[in-house]
């Protein structure tokens, strides 16, 4: 099969850009000139404002919902709800009109002037209204590391781990877009079990390297999505930092799961990279043993080679340091399995729901996706050079997640997922 020739846009795409013509991720943005939130697509260093195209190129009846064009909305939920045919039609249209060889948009000077905005002039917002947010626990390495630290190597994985993709509901209201400052949380911890718990600023603030997918069409309550149809409900992916307060989490999490240790903030990258854009990067699924129950079985590939990196910047550090390098392909459970499991009891997913992968850790030490694992429960502080170490995050630290796909002929990325830690507020 001939190698894919990446197509060219008339918009200049710098070499190494996250946003070539093969990507076309969706986001919601505004500008100081026009503060209305609207839908855009990233291309090179530009944003193509889709709300400016609803009369000319995106006026297909497929894009009308409740008598309104989905691209005229301030969130992506309606577009996501339309399903794969509409997504494919939109992608075809946008690919065509952005192509270097197509004059329709390229030569329409007036429309070009209105429809393009520099990314540096755009303020990004959450791309959709998130009705429910679920976080999974789908990295075997992460679960084994954490389990080993707390229960010993023999009892690392709980007995259910290999049979179902464990997940829990997270807090939707505190999901923020990349660039939002993160206030160190305050809460109850119990550092000394022989004494009562105490209340104060979190002393074990951590990041979690994750990815998450957005649900497209949902399912009615009481009607599970069978796994063979799960991909029809998966729109696209973002990077996600599941900021965690490990000391608050440790004291609270039994038996009802993590709660305040997570709900103070979750950051996502602003550009949703579609599953169509990710198709060239499909790889084999991680083999599963023991065999999973039939409702979770699928043979089609649904694992993706997405290279991930976490960079740390701090007031005591000169420049950024990579602290973790991992890959989405390490995950044991696939997104199809997560989605089918989530609806297996009849639970209803809705367009815009966010499903996080869980911390993505690889087999090597440098591939661990959290400081908890990288510093092995603060027993092995990370050496960042020049006498600087880290066990957990300090005030002033900035954590940036990066994701890139590169198969030698196409390279695309997710844009940054970043957040800076601010000191806790006075109690």
């Amino acid at each position, binding site marked *: 099969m001939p190698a894919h020739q990446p197509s060219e846009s008339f918009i200049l795409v710098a070499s190494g850009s996250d946003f070539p013509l093969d990507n076309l991720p969706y986001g919601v943005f505004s500008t100081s000139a026009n503060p209305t939130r609207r839908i855009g697509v990233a291309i090179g260093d530009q944003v193509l404002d889709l709300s400016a195209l609803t009369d000319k190129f995106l006026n297909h009846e497929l894009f009308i919902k409740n008598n309104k064009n989905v691209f005229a909305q301030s969130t992506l939920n309606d577009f996501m709800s339309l399903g794969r045919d509409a997504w494919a039609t939109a992608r075809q249209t946008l690919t065509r009109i952005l192509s270097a060889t197509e004059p329709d948009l390229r030569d329409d000077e007036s429309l070009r002037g209105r429809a393009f905005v520099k990314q540096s002039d755009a303020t990004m917002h959450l791309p959709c209204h998130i009705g429910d947010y679920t976080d999974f626990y789908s990295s075997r390495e992460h679960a084994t590391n954490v389990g080993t630290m707390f229960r010993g190597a023999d009892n690392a994985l709980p007995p259910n781990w290999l049979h179902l993709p464990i997940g829990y509901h997270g807090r939707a209201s*505190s999901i923020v877009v990349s660039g939002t400052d993160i206030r160190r949380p305050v809460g109850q911890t119990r550092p000394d079990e022989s004494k009562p718990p105490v209340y104060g600023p979190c002393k074990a603030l951590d990041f979690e390297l994750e990815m998450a997918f957005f649900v497209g069409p949902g399912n009615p309550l*009481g009607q599970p999505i069978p796994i063979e149809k799960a991909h029809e409900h998966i729109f696209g992916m973002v990077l996600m930092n599941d900021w965690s307060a490990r000391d608050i989490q440790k004291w609270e999490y039994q038996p*009802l799961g993590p709660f305040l240790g997570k709900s103070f903030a979750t950051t996502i990258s602003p550009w949703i990279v579609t599953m169509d854009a990710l198709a060239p990067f499909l790889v084999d699924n991680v083999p599963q043993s023991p065999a999973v*129950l039939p409702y979770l079985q699928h043979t089609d590939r649904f694992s993706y080679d997405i290279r991930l990196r976490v960079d740390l910047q701090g007031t005591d550090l000169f420049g950024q340091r990579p602290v973790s390098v991992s890959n989405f392909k390490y995950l044991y459970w696939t997104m199809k399995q997560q989605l089918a499991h989530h609806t297996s009891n009849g*639970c209803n997913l809705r367009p815009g729901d966010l499903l996080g992968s869980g911390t993505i850790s690889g087999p090597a030490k440098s591939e661990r996706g959290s400081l908890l694992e990288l510093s092995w429960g603060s027993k092995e502080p990370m050496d960042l050079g020049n006498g600087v170490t880290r066990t957990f995050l300090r005030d002033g630290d900035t954590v940036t997640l990066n994701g890139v796909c590169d198969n030698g002929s196409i390279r695309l990325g997710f844009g940054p997922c970043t957040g800076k830690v601010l000191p806790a507020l006075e109690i």
Partner: protein
Amino acid sequence: MADSTFLQLEEASDFSFQNLPFGVFSTANKPIPRIGIAIGNWIMDLSELDCFSGPEMAKQSNVFREGELNAFMGLGRNAWHETRQTVQRVLSSAEGYLRDNGHLQKRTLINQDDAIMHVPARIGDFTDFSASKRHAENDRIMFTDKSQRILPNWDYMPVAYHSRASSVVVSGTDIRRPNGQYANEDGNVDSGPVFGPTKKLDFEMEIGALIGTKNALSQPISVDSADNHVFGFVLLNDWSARDLQSWEWNPLGPFLSKSFATTISPWVVTAAALEPFLCDPICLQDPQPLPYLRSKSIKTYDINLTTSLQTEGQTEMHYSSSVICQSNYKVMYWTLAQQIAHHTSNGCNLLPGDLIGSGTVSGPTYYSSGSLSELSERGTKPITLVDGQRRAFLHDGDEVIIRGWCEDKSVRIGFGECRGRVLHHRQHSPPPFP
């Protein structure tokens, strides 16, 4: 203003003149959901009234044309207070505005039997707490097979988890028995789990609080100001699949065992209507809570709660004879104010429309247990129903009805019903287990 309405109300109606709960309804001849007030057997359609002329509501009355309470709640306590006063005046026996206008009455007063009720708010997040010690102890025995008491954190914080907002349904919605994974009970320790319909379907009798006023991200709500953020209360049934819960809960908490459905009653009883029923909790908190959970005046509400179980094929029986448990909200160890303060202590932001589940309201006595799991001692001692049938857990066709009310010598207000009937599970393809 008189302290009664010109409308003829049944004695001991839940929706007395002192109540005036808010709900979202639609009708056959006007299918658009909108906001109303329950009074006796009527609904007063607020979207049809032209009388909101006070400083808070004069330019805002379009909020009553919304299909959810969020916009109205977001206007804040002064707006809620002014609206309550306006509604009291309109319904008052001493005011002619509605009393003497047959035409207006026809437009604005709808028989509850002619209305379809909807979930009253768009629920951004639904959190469920654990605030009954007896219920927590029962859970501990059921899910860990240990007879040790509850974990130490329970005494220091109102433990909670995020639950599923999308599957909150209004009273009257049928509940499909969920399928799921659970441990094989064939006695073979090496058997993997099975997948199929839950065999341990249960109800949980709870109170739900609706947040009316938000807090900004990273700005906690103090325990002394928490009550100001609450708009009102509903009855809540936190349907649970105990076998699914046993298998999945470790380590990240209940998930699919809860997310298949949660039922709430349609009429939101306001904090204002509940004020006469403020009381001291019956539990003393020991150990003393940390300062952020300590309040100068620790208050809860005296709300009577009952759950009835009616089996398939029973003729409509008088509710009281099918009651299987009876309790009171005031038995809860943690108050709502403490739950809210804890929930936001890390900076988490609550939004109007957020739903806070109290946790199963199980009191100190056996008969006050708010779930079948406790009443049947985790299925080991099935209860006997009034028609002679026995129940360890719920059967298909069973209908669970939660009721709640407050009364003193002069006033009675009630919550209506929170009901749901269990439907047979959905056949899942492919076949569950070879």
